[in-house]
């Protein structure tokens, strides 16, 4: 009898002591090779603080992961921390009071001074309070060029978008596809957003996406972007693939000339053993206006009751922004760090170009930070239609685009 009692007591003790060792469940959707390696760096650094990282990776697209995270938080079973693309996706959760206010930690650690560009922290801020920790920067405004394709065709590698469009007929004559693009709407919309950021002035870009000025969106400057989108449609006509990395494969094999894609594409080039500036070229801002839109990933922390877990959350928030952790994570992820004071000497030539632009402050806000998912989905639908239907004129696409912007919040 006594024995049983002491057993139970021991078991209870063991149970409580295990719970207090702050196991923090962290949900994210980073599962591809490079991403998993990157997130393991976070786990390693967090475990070094004496806590335990419980990895809850979701193998699937971000939108499904987001749906599951939201239902867990609203359903009363919150995890310790979770990854989102920062921006307006978490707005509702913040308003409904599900997420923890990190302002005290941010002030203590001086995030305002270390995080550059500051727009990243602004995207985490609602009513003057900070709710998330930005961890990396991805930018979209790149034209990637396959040197092999251009050399095979005997053409000089273009140095900007206009030269690239002009070189297209010669590439076609040599039996190459001028431009590779997957037939998924996010890639098509992405390319349009890139054209909008690089072919018109910052002012126009901000008027369209930040101020939602429908008149400007219907105006002549933006029409130039729609004409460029129609050019893109023509250049990508023979690119019959779906996924973005299948399109990149055409660059690697020397079948296609270029691709507009975010900087995560470099992971594919690295896997193929290609070197920046030698085997492939990168033109930030398409070589037109060197500018990058900065978006990326951030961690949010649901409100929890348990003080032990709250402490673990604070530890994690601090860890994510430590200089060495930032370097280790971003080198694996292929993205840029959110603080400018870290040593990125080992970064390749293309990443250096990106870092230089960041240092110069040549940055725009990513559409994800400015538009709601609702508006983004509507624009996606528009471009899915525009790119599939060659009879749809740039004029009518622009008209519909202006309507969406007029309705946007």
């Amino acid at each position, binding site marked *: 009898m006594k024995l049983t009692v002491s057993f139970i007591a021991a078991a209870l003790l063991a149970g409580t002591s295990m719970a207090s060792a702050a196991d923090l469940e962290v949900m994210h959707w980073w599962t591809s090779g490079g991403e998993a390696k990157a997130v393991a760096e976070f786990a390693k650094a967090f475990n070094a603080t004496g806590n335990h990282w419980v990895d809850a990776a979701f193998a699937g697209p971000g939108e499904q992961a987001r*749906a599951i995270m939201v239902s867990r938080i609203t359903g009363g079973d919150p995890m310790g921390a979770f990854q989102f693309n920062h921006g307006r*996706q978490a707005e509702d959760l913040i308003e409904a009071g599900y997420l923890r206010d990190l302002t005290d930690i941010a002030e203590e650690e001086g995030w305002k001074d270390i995080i550059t560009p500051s727009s990243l922290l602004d995207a985490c801020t609602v009513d003057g309070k900070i709710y998330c920790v930005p961890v990396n920067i991805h930018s979209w405004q790149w034209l990637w060029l396959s040197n092999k394709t251009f050399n095979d065709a005997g053409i000089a590698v273009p140095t900007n978008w206009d030269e690239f469009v002009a070189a297209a007929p010669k590439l076609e004559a040599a039996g190459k596809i001028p431009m590779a693009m997957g037939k*998924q709407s996010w890639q098509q919309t992405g390319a349009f957003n890139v054209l909008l950021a690089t072919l018109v002035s910052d002012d126009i870009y901000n008027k369209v996406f930040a101020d939602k000025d429908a008149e400007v969106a219907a105006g002549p400057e933006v029409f130039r972007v729609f004409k460029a989108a129609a050019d893109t449609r023509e250049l990508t006509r023979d690119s*019959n693939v779906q996924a973005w990395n299948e399109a990149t494969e055409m660059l690697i094999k020397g079948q296609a000339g270029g691709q507009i894609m975010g900087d995560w594409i470099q992971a594919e080039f690295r896997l193929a053993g290609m070197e920046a500036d030698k085997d492939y070229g990168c033109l930030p801002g398409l070589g037109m206006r060197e500018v990058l839109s900065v978006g990326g990933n951030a961690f949010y922390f649901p409100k929890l009751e348990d003080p032990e877990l709250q402490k673990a959350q604070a530890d994690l928030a601090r860890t994510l922004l430590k200089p060495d952790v930032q370097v280790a994570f971003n080198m694996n992820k292929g993205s840029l760090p959110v603080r400018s004071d870290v040593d990125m000497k080992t970064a390749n030539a293309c990443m250096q170009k990106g870092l230089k632009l960041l240092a110069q402050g040549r940055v725009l806000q990513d559409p994800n930070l400015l538009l709601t*998912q609702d508006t983004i*989905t509507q624009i996606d639908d528009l471009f*899915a*239609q525009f790119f599939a*239907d060659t009879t749809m004129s740039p004029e009518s696409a622009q008209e519909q685009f202006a309507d969406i912007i007029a*309705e946007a919040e």
Partner: protein
Amino acid sequence: MASKRPNRLFRNLSSKIAAIPMALTALVVFVGGTAWTITYSFTNSKMLPKAKWVGMDQYERLWQTKRWIVSIDNLLIYGLFMLFFSFLIGFLLAALMDQKIRFENTFRTIILYPYALSFIVTGLVWQWILNPEFGVQNIVRSLGWESFDFNPLYSPEIAIFGVMLAALWQGSGLVMVLMLAGLRGIDQEIWKAARVDGIPIWKTYLFVVIPMMRAVFVTALVLITSGIIKVYDLIVAQTGGGPGLSTEMPAKYVYDYMFRAQNLGQAFAGSTMMLLAVLIIVVPWAMMEFRSNRRG
């Protein structure tokens, strides 16, 4: 013993108690959930439900959205052709199977087998079969017919028929089995009588047998129609709604606006419209069906 008339409420008490969970599920989950969804379709709920009323705004936007209109068109085209062909193919196969052929079991298994696969598998398999690079087109071309063109999934005008091909491949087997069961239920005497009267076989099928199989047709109709209206996974696996918007479906619109666009209000408006469409078709039919049963 003075026998008191038992309270009607307590008659078959045990079976009524047994039915309570199901009745509750139906009431709370289905009816309750439906009412909740319809209510919130009049709000501007984004990621989370919020009771901020906006009247008919969501519906106005829905019917001004090109993608929704295209989805409805697609569903109509897909639905009509799918109904017609699955009944035609299913009935023909069943009639052939009913000719006392050898290895009937084997054939029946082969034809019904696709139904055991999920729509995701079906969609992927047919995506590959119809892929111009390594599917049917490639095989025929490699046999020597160089100009052969068969590329439905990459041609916006006919992509919906590429999807229908896959759905027919999967669904016809089920219709066949149902029809076969119906045919087996027909009294052999009727066939004999028809033969004595010298009525051709096709006429016997058309004017005698099919009218007698009414119940089977109704069952098949309900199964196939509900499958058509909720078609979603096949589209996602096979085309993702593309090229462009050419194979978008209402169910996919609802899902995308609920989870991707984080716009619950818009998604609820879409699903309410779907419910309404079903009701418009089902209610008159059910009333007719049940009234005639009571009379009969």
